[in-house]
């Protein structure tokens, strides 16, 4: 999922302080799973903002809505009924959702309430870790299911660097050395031989390095 974390309240307040009526929109997908911007978090942020306004002797009217997703125009359209009463929109979705709302409602100021972090998976409840960098040319089949782009600090493609110590990365004792993980995995699969296959220099044009990307499915696009 795309992971995110709520911005500090003070930073959110800087965005909404000039307004008295806002539309606070959550998202039922990724940010719900990582407990950053789902229905529950919308309720909490609404209460927190209203209390902050009350402390300053002002009233903040918050309309709370949680869409199924904010990255599809069909769902963003559901905001039409509530948008006119709001002076501004505060979105708890990832950057994709915030932009889709801004695109649809060009005349309304839209603010992000979370910082979008990374594409990751749950290690256990409450802990999410980066797993994919969207490089556009997946090599997971060659590395036993461990991604050297996302999980190696240096994005090395042919084994660890000299900083790999007791299975940990030199940048941080809590970060696993991806290549240690890859080696262990290939060994468990009986595929040690694959370790010696050289991966050539990566063509980064398929990644964000090649510019903002787009997928067009001719059979689906009307």
């Amino acid at each position, binding site marked *: 999922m795309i992971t995110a974390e709520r911005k500090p309240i003070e930073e959110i307040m800087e965005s909404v302080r000039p307004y008295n009526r806002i539309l606070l929109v959550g998202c039922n997908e990724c940010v719900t799973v990582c407990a950053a911007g789902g229905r*529950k978090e919308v*309720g909490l942020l609404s*209460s927190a903002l209203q209390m902050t306004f009350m402390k300053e002797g002002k009233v903040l009217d918050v309309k709370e809505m949680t869409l199924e997703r904010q990255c599809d125009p069909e769902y963003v359209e559901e905001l039409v009924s509530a948008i006119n009463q709001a002076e501004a929109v505060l979105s708890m979705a990832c950057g994709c959702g915030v932009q889709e709302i801004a695109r649809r409602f060009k005349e309304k100021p839209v603010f992000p309430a979370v910082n979008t972090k990374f594409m990751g998976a749950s290690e256990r409840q409450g802990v999410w870790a980066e797993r994919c960098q969207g490089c556009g040319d997946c090599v997971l089949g060659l590395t036993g299911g461990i991604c050297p782009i996302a999980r190696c600090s240096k994005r090395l493609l042919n084994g660890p660097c000299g900083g790999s110590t007791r299975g940990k990365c030199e940048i941080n004792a809590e970060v696993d050395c991806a290549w240690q993980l890859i080696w262990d995995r290939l060994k468990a699969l009986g595929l040690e031989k694959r370790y010696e296959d050289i991966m050539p220099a990566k063509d980064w044009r398929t990644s964000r390095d090649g510019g903002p990307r787009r997928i067009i499915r001719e059979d689906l696009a009307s």
Partner: protein
Amino acid sequence: MKPFEPVIVAFCCHYCAYTAADMAGSMRRCYPPNVHILRVPCSGKVDAIHIMKAFQKGADGVYVAGCLEGDCHFKDGNLRAARRVAYVKKLLDEIGVGGDRLEMITMSAGMGERFAVTASEFTEKIRRLGPNPVKGAAQAKQKVAAG
């Protein structure tokens, strides 16, 4: 000027804290009338939003009372409650209401005395902290308007 009487909301789990409160009653052991008890099946039922709404509606102090560590009727509900209380304390600090207005308290069903003592101590702590700042600005405005 009336002395400040804090409004305290106590989320009490049915199996331990609420029964301890009942025990305090049976023992005729007094505790401040400021404490408003809300019975929940388990302290783990209390969600962050319940606590936030209590403060938003004007409570000066809130505590969540559950079973002793390891004794939760529902295995680990009290541990979840403790983690949630810690999270909301931080949020309350962030918005300037103050995390010290919120506590997690544990006790067993037979601890009527402990219920009464913690209720009194918490009430006094909140009395010293003063009214919930969320009410403060509105009240100050009213005072100014009244002349």
